[in-house]
Every structure is written in C-alpha cells, then in structure tokens.
C-alpha cells in the first residue's frame, strides 16, 4: 500500500510574488514558514503530491464547471498565462498519470463523481506554493480541484469526505508510493467584492486553532454562509484544507506561520500535520 508521508496546508495569493517589495517584514515571516515546510517536505521524500486546490475561473467557466475535478495530465502548467503577472517563469510541473487515473476511477467507484481534466493551467493556486515548496519542479503532482469560487459550492462536509476517500485510496493502493498531501487557499480574504481587502485575523486564528488541536471536523461543519460571513468569499478556499484534514482525522497540526497581510489582501497561514 501507499503511505501518506507528509501533509500540509498553506494560503496562496498572487501578490506574494506579484508585489515582492510590499510588506517586507510580513513577507519574510510568511516565507520563513514556507521554507520550513519545504525542508520538511523534502525530508519526507514523497514520490507524488496530491494537491487540493481550486481554479480561479481560468480553467473552468460557467459553461462547464465541475464541483470536483482530478487532473490526470502528464504535465501541468504552473503558471502559463499568469506568468508575467505573478513574476514566476512559465513552467510545467510533472503529473502522475497512473496515480491520477486510478484516483479518478476509485472515486467514481466509491460514489465521488469526479470530473477529469488532461490539461490544466494554474494560477497562484498551485504556482505560488510550488514556487516556494517545490522550486526544482521535479516532484509529480496530482491536482484535485474543488469549486471554491463560483457558487453554489460543494459543502465543506463533502470536502472532508473527499479527503477521507483519498486516504482510503492511498491505503488500498497496490503501488507503494510515498504520498504527500498539500492543500492551498484561504484563510480569510474578501476579493473582487465590495469590501475587497478585508481580512478577519480572529477567524483565521480560530481556523488555525482547529488545525493545531486536530479538530478538522469543526471546519467541516461550517456552512457556506458561516464562511462567507467570517472568512469572506476567498475564505471558501478553506475546503482545500478541510480535504487534507479529512484524510487525517484527529491528527494535530503545527502552525508554521500566520500573517494577515493587507498588501496581499489575505490572512496567510501555513501548517504542518504531525503524522
């Protein structure tokens, strides 16, 4: 069977790289947290990283908008069209085709009606975390996307269940890969809405407390309205964290960093799960 050898969550935001001169002190603190995460991830020697992420209406539009989708391509753009804006050179990260296709099939068999994509283009969702955590670009990734940006959205409870399914898939996998789980997004941010730029550090710290204490269920019990009120529309991305937590019920986390960065319009946290 395959094994989960690492699990972590981090915020993503385009301005982390797009405006590198902004908020130097907070940027230093946050990137120190990601540097620690990178070190631990490398030490865990994963063969593949399952990345729970979300589209930002670059791959999926209202003409065809999956609630959940697994990327099975041999390569994933991270970034392509957003490269100039993100100030990250365009590149492709390797995919894990067999793993991804097996995950897709197992999902459908288990009642998780995943959509599938053979070609995905990522923005800050994958590109920014990968820039800091996997700069070599050699580690294969399997993106599992959840609609967090175009309501109606799948429930947080379903993301928790999705994580549980991925855990069972890994446990049952006949190939003995070392698997890392990485969720990106959140924590609170209001983006593109009338109060764009608002951050709620109080809610962010509550979220991080639940991660620290192994209380992922508390996040899974949130409703869309709870999150919209306390975490903003960007806070809906917390589903990607909840999926990781759903794979590891009861496991406690270590908060590596938290900075509510006004210039990034995001309450930025990163946490490492203590397997």
């Amino acid at each position: 069977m395959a094994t989960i050898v690492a699990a972590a969550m981090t915020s993503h935001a385009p301005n982390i790289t797009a405006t590198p001169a902004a908020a130097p002190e907070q940027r230093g603190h946050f990137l120190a947290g990601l540097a620690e995460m990178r070190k631990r991830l490398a030490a865990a020697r994963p063969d593949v990283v399952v990345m729970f992420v979300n589209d930002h209406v670059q791959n999926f539009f209202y003409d065809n908008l999956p609630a959940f989708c697994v990327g099975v391509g041999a390569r994933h753009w991270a970034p392509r069209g957003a490269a100039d804006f993100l100030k990250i050179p365009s590149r492709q990260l390797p995919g894990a085709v067999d793993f991804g296709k097996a995950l897709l099939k197992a999902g459908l068999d288990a009642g998780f009606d995943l959509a599938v994509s053979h070609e995905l283009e990522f923005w800050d969702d994958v590109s920014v975390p990968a820039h800091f955590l996997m700069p070599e670009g050699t580690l294969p990734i399997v993106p599992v996307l959840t609609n967090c940006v175009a309501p109606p959205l799948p429930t947080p409870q379903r993301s928790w269940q999705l994580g549980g399914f991925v855990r069972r898939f890994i446990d049952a996998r006949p190939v003995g890969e070392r698997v890392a789980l990485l969720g990106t997004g959140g924590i609170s941010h209001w983006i593109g809405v009338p109060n764009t730029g608002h951050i709620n550090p109080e809610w962010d710290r509550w979220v991080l407390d639940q991660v620290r204490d192994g209380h992922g269920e508390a996040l899974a019990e949130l409703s869309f309205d709870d999150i919209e009120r306390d975490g903003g529309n960007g806070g809906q991305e917390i589903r990607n964290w909840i999926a990781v937590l759903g794979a590891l019920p009861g496991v406690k986390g270590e908060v590596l960093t938290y900075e509510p960065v006004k210039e990034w319009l995001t309450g930025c946290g990163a946490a490492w799960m203590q397997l």
Partner: protein
Amino acid sequence: MSDYALNQVLYAKAREHKMIESIGADEVAGYDLSAEERAALADGDLDALFRLGANPYLIRRVFRRRFAL
C-alpha cells in the same frame, strides 16, 4: 440578458491577461446584455458588476487597476 453573458465578456477579457479600466459598447456587440450591464462594463463600476452577478474573481482580474488595494 443574463449574468452568464456578463461573465462571458469578463472571461474573454481575463483570458487576454490585460488590466483595463472599461469595456466599451463596441467590444460587447453580440452579447445579450442589459443596458445596466453594458453601463457597468463601460464605467468599470465594480459594485454594479458585483450586484449584477459578475464573478468577483473575474471582476478583480479584469478591473484590477480600479481597486484601491
């Protein structure tokens, strides 16, 4: 007219990776938009676009320069 058409306009612009201030009438010919939707696009009116059902991420991507932050 529908918020679908409004989002179609924004999506097409977003894919051009340009940050703009407004989307004029000549650029939305053929889209089934209301007068209010056309005005919101022409004015780059962030609040009106949101109220009319434009996706916030598309509003942000296209009209980024109009945001204070």
